[in-house]
């Protein structure tokens, strides 16, 4: 084990700050931060794909799969244990990614985006047709225990928050290490020049496949977390606008640092919450305008404001 570097230190410090601060946050803020962290995981997975030169307009597929996997554990097996739900979600999204990833691995650019979109919309269509799963109304999920220990309602809130925060920190550190590893460094290599990667003896397909699966796993986990936090799931999670929103937050965050997705996600949730409250009739306009401003003035994402090096931080 090497010593943690700056990014990892910030991630760990952030985790401790969150865990300590969370106890004092008002409930609405705790919920908002929990949700932002869970969604940040999805954005982090998009960061990995974007580093590989790929953008998915169908990440809702895994987000929704993870949520429904967790939900069905509760619905069908009557297990309310958060640990079981998350593990099943992780397994299901990985299993689907193993197959879908095979099909996607040879696609790039807009075609990768559109084929992903097609898959997520097929899932959406299937769920809307499933009356047993509540069709578009979805169904509710209740967490009653975590890893065997039963929970009260108040401790559940904090537990889910702590879970999200820990997953976020672990995922950020893990992703940071992965991107710094030889395998992870192939991601930007593939984005820059696939031909050269092949002529160095590595398989571009395999890199894309692996990264797709890692991204799917993170997203599935995030979907399950969201489901537990919100307490309700519906097919909307697979709809293309959900995926589009994640891509937007990813662009907003920038790909410079593994911490950026969480910051971007938090800012986005805040922006939307305030837009809803202060401009209920025109919140879409506020969000759209914010989006344009970021693209115009912060082309490398919000992280550019924080990053010491404007250009690129490995």
């Amino acid at each position, binding site marked *: 084990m090497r010593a943690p570097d700056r990014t990892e230190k910030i991630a760990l410090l952030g985790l401790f700050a969150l865990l300590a601060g969370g106890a004092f946050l008002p409930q609405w803020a705790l919920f908002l931060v929990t949700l932002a962290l869970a969604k940040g995981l999805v954005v982090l997975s998009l960061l990995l794909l974007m580093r590989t030169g790929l953008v998915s307009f169908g990440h809702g597929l895994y987000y929704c799969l993870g949520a429904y996997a967790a939900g069905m554990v509760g619905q069908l097996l009557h297990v309310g244990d958060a640990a079981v739900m998350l593990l099943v979600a992780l397994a299901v999204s990985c299993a689907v990614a193993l197959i879908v990833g095979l099909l996607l691995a040879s696609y790039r650019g807009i075609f990768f985006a559109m084929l992903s979109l097609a898959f997520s919309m097929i899932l959406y269509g299937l769920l809307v*047709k499933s009356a047993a799963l509540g069709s578009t109304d979805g169904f509710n999920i209740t967490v009653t225990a975590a890893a065997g220990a039963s929970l009260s309602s108040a401790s559940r809130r904090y537990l889910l928050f702590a879970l999200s925060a820990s997953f976020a920190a672990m995922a950020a550190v893990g992703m940071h290490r992965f991107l710094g590893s030889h395998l992870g460094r192939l991601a930007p290599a593939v984005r820059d020049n696939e031909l050269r990667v092949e002529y160095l003896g590595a398989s571009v397909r395999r890199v894309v496949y692996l990264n797709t699966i890692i991204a799917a796993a993170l997203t599935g986990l995030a979907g399950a977390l969201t489901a537990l936090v*919100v307490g309700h799931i519906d097919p*909307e999670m697979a709809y293309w606008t959900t995926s589009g929103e994640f891509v937007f937050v990813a662009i907003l965050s920038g790909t410079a640092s593994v911490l950026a997705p969480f910051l971007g996600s938090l800012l986005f949730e805040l922006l*939307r919450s305030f837009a*809803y*409250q202060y401009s209920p009739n025109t*919140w879409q306009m506020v969000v759209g305008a914010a989006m344009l401003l970021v693209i115009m003035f912060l082309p490398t994402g919000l992280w550019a404001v924080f990053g010491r090096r404007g250009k690129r931080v490995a």
Partner: protein
Amino acid sequence: MARPIPLFEGLAILAIASAAGAQQPAGAEVKPVKIGIVTFLSGAAAGPFGVPARNGAELLVEAINAGSLPPPYATKGFGGAPLSLAFIDEAGGTTKQVSEYRDLVQRQNVDVVVGYISSGDCLAVAPVAEELKKLTVLFDCGSPRIFEDASYQYVFRTDAHAAMDSVGAALYVTELKPGLKKIAGINQNYAWGQDSWNDFESAIKALKPAVETTTSQMPKLLSGQYGAEISALLSGDPDVVHSSFWDGDLEAFVLQAAPRGVFAKSTVILTAGETAMARLGAQIPDGTVIGARGPHGVYAPDNQLNRWLRKAFFDRYGVAATYPAYHMAQALLGLKTAYEKAGSGAGQEKVIAALEGSSFETPSGTIRMALAKGHQAIEETVYGTTKTVKGQVTVVNVKRYPAEVVNPPEGMKTQDWIKASLKRTK
């Protein structure tokens, strides 16, 4: 085509909302009641449902604060406590709604939440209301699942659930067409459309087991183009076509289906047709069966409250009040009744106890909180057939079905009730 420009309308509403907020006198003895209102302010459901409901809320709250409602509500505020409103757009999906709900309760500190048109949002928000222990009145959503799959202490629904509409529709068409042999449906492909059709189909089959379904079309929400669906409906030659379409989709369907003879060939029943009546007018062919999700709008009883609402709404907004406005009135008047029964300054628990199992007068007649241990309302439902008189669309052959006939008894699930007992209740 003249209509008020919504921008100004919106500004006016904001001004009223802030006026209502500012109205409370400094150092007043009664704490104002802050109500969070959640309805669709954007998206497809805003026009037909969200905005009429919001307008209804504005109108009523203003009148309640001024004490200008007809009796038995002629007193000011909720037992003297003035009301203020906070609006939230219901668009954006359940995740956002749960988030906004928490925000409303914990950051904006509302005393009670009234809202939710989408059943998905109702389902999602109900457990959160329990967790946060906040009195929440669902005013419009339809799915029976909300109180049949769970039981709640803090959540109420002051409109009847949607199975009533389908059962009423089945009763009406079987009476209208005793020789009914073939039915077909066109419903939107989401929970509301699917449930509506399933309930209607099973109700018809319970009443007339020999009836055959020629086709059940489920186009996507907002798809707008029904050419192929209409062909499929026509080629099955059904006696009755059932549709729970609303607003844009409903109007598009009527516009596209009428010239192609669907209405001439079959009796079309539009269970949520009332929201479109005012706009479509004579475009709706004569002989179409229209529902209003209860005794609302054209079907509302001729009582003092209804006369007030009808006039005040039209005077202010230039359009007739449709059922979402009536549903909103039910929620607010139910609350007013409960608050006043609980007494001035009573805690939330007392208000809840007062609301449980209560009954109260509304523009839609008497509402009784009869199901789900007093948390779910029942009301009568009404159907009628259109007839154009001097260019104005009117309803004739109006039939009212008492609440007990079209709603399941306490403790019975809707689906079981339709299958097992509908025949006998008839």
